[in-house]
Each structure stands twice: as C-alpha cells, then as structure tokens.
C-alpha cells in the first residue's frame, strides 16, 4: 500500500511539473546622469520588460526638489528567431529646484496583480562654479591702486545683468540667455551665483563661465559670463526669473599686509558680503505656423540635413538589416524624433537604438542624432527600402522644409532556417495555389459526434473510478491472501470458520439416516454434529466433551437458554440411542429440526 501512495505522489508531481512556464516581468529606473550642475536637467527613465501590456499612462505627480516634465513613452516588441522581447519606457525630464544630493523616490507599479518597485535614485546637483580667483582678470596691482577708493563702494561697482539674444522666438527655437557679472572692486572670495528659474524652457549649457574685461558707461569692468541655450516648449510670453549673485568684496576692513596669501579666506579679514539680483527677462514665444505644416512634421525647429545608410545590402530572410538615419544641423538635437517609417508588408521593423552628439559652435546648439532602424525581411526577393522624409521648421526662412534620404535596394535570399524558407515563394498574405498542394479529402464522414463532446478521458470521475479499479483488485487479493494464510496457521480460526459447514454436513447425513429409519445412527449423527460444532466453535477437543464441560465453557459466551436447549438436545439423543422400543419418526424429525435451529442460533452469537 505504501508503494501505491508513493506512486500516486510521483504521478501528481510529474503532472504538476508539466504546467507552462511564465515569463518574468522586470521593472527598472535609471537616470542619464548622476551629477549635474544647477539649472541642468536629468532624463529619468522607467523601463518595464516583460508583460507591459496592461499599463495605463504613468504620472509621477509632484516630486520634492524636482520639476517634472514627461517626455513620452516608447515601446519595443520584437520576435526574432523565436524569441520575443517586449519593453516599455516612460521618460521624464527632471529639473532640480535646489542644489545638493537630491533623491528621486521609488515608485510602485502594479502589473498583472503583482507589485514592482523602482529603485530610489540620487543625483548630485552642484552649484554653478565661478572661475577660481587666480583666473579673475583684475590684476593685483590694479587692485592695490584702487585701495583708497575701495572704502567707498559705489552701487555701480558690481552689476549683474541677464539678457537674451532675441526676445521673440518660435517654439523650440534657440534663445541664448546671458548671465553677466560686472565688477570693478576686489573680490575676496569666489562669487556664488544662483541660476534663474527657466520654467517653460528646455535648457542646454553653453560651456563654463568666461571672464573678460569690458567698458560699460565709460567705466572699465571685469566680467564673468555664463551663457545658456533655452528652447521654449510652448507658445506664449515666458519669463526667465531673476539671477542672483553673492559676492564678498574688499571694503577696506580687510587690511592684511599679507593679503596676497589670504585671498580666499574672507572670514579672517572681514570684507563686505553683497547680494546682487538681475531683472527678470521676458521672451515672447510664437507658435509654429499652421499654414503649410506637413502631416509628418515632428516638431523639429532649426536647420537640418539627413542621410540614411544600411550596414549591408545582401541579407537572408529573417536576418535584420540596420538603417542608420543621421540627422545633423543646428537646433534642439535632443528633441528630434525619428522620421516616420512607412508600412512595409515585406518587413518587420523596430527601432534598434539611437544616439546623439551635441555640438555648441558660436553659442548655437546643434549636432547629430542617429537612429538605428532594423528591418527584418519576411520573404526572399529584391526590395527597395523607401527614402525617408524629415520635416523641420526653419525659423530664419519662417517656413517648413523637408529633407529626404535616398532609397536603398536590398537583396534578400532565402534563409537557411527551415521555417523561414517555407515562405520564400509567398509574395503576399494570399495563398499561393501554384505551390505544392494539400492532401486530398476524406471520402467517408466517419463516426459523428456532438461538436462539444470531450473524450471520456477528460472526465475526472471516469479517471478516478478506472484508476481505483486496479488498486481495489490489489486490496481484494491482499485480503484473500491474508485470510488463507490465517486459515493455514491458526487452527482455532480454521475450526471456527469450518464449524457451521461441518455441522450442516453432518445434519444432512443425519437427515438421510432419518429417511432410512436408522434410529441409532441418526441419534448418533445428530449428537456428533452438535458436539463437534460446539468443539469447533471454541477450539475444544470433541472427544470427552460432556454436558458439564459444555456448561463450563459456555458460561459468559452463550445464553443460558441456548445452553439449556443444547444440553436438552444431547440428552434426547442419548435417550433415543439407548432407550428400548425405538423412536417415532416424527419425534426424530422434530429432534433434527431442533438441532438445525439450535446450530443457527448458536452461530448468531458469534
């Protein structure tokens, strides 16, 4: 029996192990940079791989220390060589509202009833550094010459101005913000600038602080300038906030003869701390004209060129060919989207990647953005990959312009892969009847069944009953075997099991003697059947079993009434055998009936 249980367990385990495997879903988050300067932005991306089929739009809401701008989603699905990859990316542009180590908290996503947490990330936001003191142009001699004047600081000795190169621009057209610090006094420490708020603009730094000298209103100044390229994201009047600058200047209280060595330690010699603030700057952003806007315009503004090339022109079915689409020029390169890829029925397409190279020439943002678009041919043949269109708005010409790439011919040969080669003679989704044909029809309708009928083996009760049959058979055989073994080994049990059978046998013999009117033999046989039955029931030797011994054994095992009847019957037998004159047949028959009934009654008390 134990073996049967073990077999059943093994069977259940084997069945359980056959269940299908499930694909894993992974969620990750990343930033493109972990250290930025104040005023810069980081791209925060949440990527879901696996089952991203039932996700709603993701909203980060308000984040402490960050301004959040969604920059769209992207999805990738690919079936290549039997493997499927599915991923979805949510992109956000995060702009810090203060300096220091800022955290991007973890987010919990629920996908298919399971929860996934993104990792918490941190980004270091550095204050914008001014050039080091030795680089500041004012010469020491010049400062010393001005020492007598330093005690009377004029409000014109330090100035902070923010200006833009143009105050009216189109959406996504560059406007260059200049933050310039003028000073004509001795600085005792590096000034600490505070970049203005630039909400509504996509910002791109145009290098580090640049120092120079300049004459303003007839006065000579040392200057430090920081330029930033701004790209307005929406039409309307945008305001660039005030910039601030904290500076510690020598007001005469700093009178250390060894001042040369003490520069940079204003706390020792005093000095005067000043905070300068620039005026806000307004920029009017014009919407892009609707007139003449092509349907495939993707929002690019500037002046661009486009080229397209492929890594190979001879491929096999199901082998990807990568088209490198290169868009270069002047404008907000980062915001450029891939040109629309036309539907190609003979190819599967997916975006394999993109990269960008930013250049800042003469304070103008430009560069190159390259998209790698994979084309996977479904069938053999000669194909033209179409020329792509890229539409942009040229703010100088105030018109939309289109650049196109050349068509590229590719030769697709049948694949060595047996599955792909099966479809090489199929040009479309239509069935090609000229190919080898299907096998012919069946001529007999066969056995009809109900449409919804399931096989008998699909019924759990049928399976349970059928599989239990061998088990039950085994149990029956096992029980019978044990019974036989006990009969052989246990004499008392064997006599008990055979007592009734032997008694019936002897009574039958007595009946024949009754019919033959052989009274002596009849009484003797009846007496023997009853005595032997009793002896077999209680595993006693039949020889010498007297009335007294019967009474002694029967105490507590049989009712007194039955014992009395038994003894009475034995007495009648003795009387019949030994009494002279013989017995009447009816009396003998009554005795026989009594003996039979008595054995039945004794059997009931087992």
């Amino acid at each position, binding site marked *: 029996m134990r*073996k*049967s249980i073990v*077999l059943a367990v093994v*069977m259940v385990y*084997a*069945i359980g192990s*056959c269940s*299908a*495997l499930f*694909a894993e879903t992974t969620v990750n988050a990343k930033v493109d940079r972990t250290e930025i300067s104040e005023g810069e932005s980081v791209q925060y991306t949440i990527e879901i791989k696996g*089952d*991203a*089929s*039932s996700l709603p739009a993701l909203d980060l809401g308000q984040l402490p220390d960050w301004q959040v701008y969604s920059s769209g989603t992207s*999805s990738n*699905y690919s*079936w290549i060589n*039997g*493997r*499927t990859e*599915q991923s979805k990316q949510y992109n956000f542009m995060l702009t810090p509202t203060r300096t220091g180590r800022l955290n991007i908290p973890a987010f919990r996503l629920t996908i298919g009833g399971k929860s996934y947490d993104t990792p918490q990330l941190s980004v270091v936001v550095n204050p914008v550094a001014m050039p080091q003191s030795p680089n500041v142009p004012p010469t020491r001699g010049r400062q010393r010459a001005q020492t007598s004047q330093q005690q009377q600081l004029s409000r014109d000795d330090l100035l902070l101005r923010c200006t833009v190169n143009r105050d009216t621009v189109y959406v996504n057209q560059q406007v260059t913000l200049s933050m310039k610090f003028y000073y004509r006094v001795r600085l005792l420490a590096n000034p600490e600038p505070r970049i203005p708020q630039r909400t509504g603009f996509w910002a791109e730094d145009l290098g580090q602080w640049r120092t120079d000298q300049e004459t303003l209103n007839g006065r000579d100044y040392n200057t430090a300038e920081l330029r930033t390229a701004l790209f307005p994201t929406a039409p309307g009047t945008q305001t660039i906030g005030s910039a601030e600058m904290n500076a510690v200047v020598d007001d005469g209280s700093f009178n250390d003869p060894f001042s040369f060595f003490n520069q940079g330690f204003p706390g020792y010699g005093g000095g005067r701390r000043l905070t300068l603030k620039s005026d806000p700057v307004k920029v009017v952003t014009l919407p892009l004209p609707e007139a003449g806007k092509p349907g495939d315009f993707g929002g690019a503004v500037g002046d661009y060129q486009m080229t397209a090339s492929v890594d190979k022109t001879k491929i096999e079915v199901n082998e990807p060919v990568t088209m490198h689409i290169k868009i270069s020029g002047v404008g907000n390169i980062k915001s450029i989207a891939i040109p629309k890829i036309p539907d190609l029925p003979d190819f599967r397409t997916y975006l394999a990647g993109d990269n960008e190279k930013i250049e800042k020439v003469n304070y103008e943002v430009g560069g190159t953005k390259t998209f790698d678009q994979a084309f996977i041919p*479904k069938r053999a043949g000669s194909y033209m990959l179409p020329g792509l269109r890229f539409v942009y708005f040229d703010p100088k010409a105030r018109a939309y312009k289109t650049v196109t790439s050349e068509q590229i011919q590719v030769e697709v040969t049948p694949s060595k892969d047996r*599955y*792909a080669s*099966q*479809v090489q003679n*199929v040009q479309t*989704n*239509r*069935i*090609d009847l000229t190919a*080898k044909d*299907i*096998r012919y*029809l*069946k001529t*007999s*309708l*066969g*056995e*009809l*069944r*109900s*449409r919804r*009928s*399931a*096989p*008998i*083996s*699909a019924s759990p009760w049928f*399976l349970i009953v059928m*599989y239990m*049959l*061998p*088990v039950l*058979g*085994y149990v029956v*055989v*096992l029980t019978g*075997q044990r019974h036989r073994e006990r009969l052989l080994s246990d004499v008392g049990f064997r006599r008990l099991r055979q007592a009734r059978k032997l008694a019936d046998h002897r009574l039958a013999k007595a009946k024949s003697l009754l019919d033959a009117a052989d009274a002596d033999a009849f009484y003797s046989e009846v007496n023997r059947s009853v005595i032997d039955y009793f002896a077999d029931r209680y595993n006693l030797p039949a020889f010498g079993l007297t009335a007294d011994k019967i009474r002694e054994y029967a105490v507590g095992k049989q009712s007194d009434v039955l014992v009395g009847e038994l003894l009475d019957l034995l007495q009648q037998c003795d009387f019949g055998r030994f009494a002279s004159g013989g017995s009447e047949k009816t009396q003998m028959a009554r005795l026989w009936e009594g003996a039979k009934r008595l054995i039945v009654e004794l059997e009931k008390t087992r």
Partner: protein
Amino acid sequence: MRRLLALLLLLLLPSLAYAGANEDFEEGVRLYDRGDFTASAEKLQSVIDQGYASAPLYYNTACAYYKAGHLGEAIANFRRAEKMTPDDEDIRTNLAFVKQFCVDKVDASQTDSFLSQVGNLLATLHPNQYFLISFVACALLFAFLALKRTGVVAHFGNFPIFALAAITIISATAMIWVLRANYLVDEGVIVVEQTEILSGPGSEFELQFEGHEGLTFEVLDQKQDYYLGLFANRLKGWVKTSAVEKI
C-alpha cells in the same frame, strides 16, 4: 401500435440524421471536385452548424476553406480535426502545409523550444489512447504486485514494478498534457487578413503588434468584444472577437 411506431421512429431518427449529414458531406466533396471551393466550404460548414462533428468532416471543411483562400478558418478546422484524431497523418501534413502561409511565424518559432517539441511528439496520440496505455500499465502493475505477494512471480525481481510504474506515470502525464492542450484550454485563430493586438480591451488602448490571418493563440479571457490572447513566448494582447474564430 402507435407507441411501437413512435419507438421505431425514435430509434430511426439518429440514422436518418446521419443519412442527411452524409448526403451534405458527399455534396461538399463533389463541389470540391468540381473546383467550387467556396460552395464546398459552405456545404460542409452547414453540416458542422447542425451540431455534427467528425474528424473527416472538419478535415474536408478545412481543405475547402484553404482552397477558397480562407487561411484562418482552414487552420481552425484542421486543429479541430487534429484534436479528434491526432495520429492522422493527412491532418498533420495538411495543417503543417497550410501554416507555412501564415505571416506570423509564431508556431514555427515555438517548435524550436524543447517543450514545444515534446508537446508535438505527445500530440500524436489521442488522450483516450494515453489513458488506455496508462490504465493497462497500472492494472498490470497492481496485478504484478499481487502475484508477487502471493509468491507466484517472486523470482522476477522489482524491475517490472519500476517499468510499469514509469509507463503509468509517463502515459498519464502525456494524457493530461494533451487534454490540457486540446480540451481544457480555449484556442483561437485570427480569421481576418490583419488585426490589431491591443494592450487592453478597447480601441483606445495601445497597439502591441499586428496579428495576421492564421495566427493561433490561447484564449485567456473575454471582456466586451475582445479576447485576451496568450501568444507565443507568453506575449499577451487583446484581439477583437470578430477577428477570431475559437477552435
């Protein structure tokens, strides 16, 4: 007398119905021979629509659909026929032949995996056949155990026990595998030239990918007019019910 007549009629009804279905079946074959595949498919489909089913009926209907240019319906009916008689070489060959015209090579890619190959191997027998094998092996196993207990086959050792137990487990597992694949799981096939597989049950949801005629999938759920399908490699998506025929 009337009762007797009614009883006779009741007994004759199935054979009368069979005769009618057989007539339509033969008419469908004749139409096919004449090259009128669309009419042949309609005639054979009418027999199925009456509630009848047999492997040859599904097989012939599938052939007619294929010839009439309906790849999706052809695959659906070949699969139904295959479920009934998985060891029929004609059905397996024609199904494989027809599947090569599917744009989405999902089924082909599936066969690359070890599990799929095992599944294909197991699918060559009907679940009832697997049951018979496992039941006979199980009965022999317990019979052998009983004989061993009684000492009749004591000299045989334990090898037959392990062998019979292994046959029982393997064939029972195969039976459950095939039952699950063919009867316990709903299957669907795309019957339109091209349809969108969406991320949710509605046109407002995002496009996951495009499925083409003949693409088969496991139907997991239904909401409104959309089926949630489990495609190859565990890819899920919602398909319009009007573009799908359940197998």
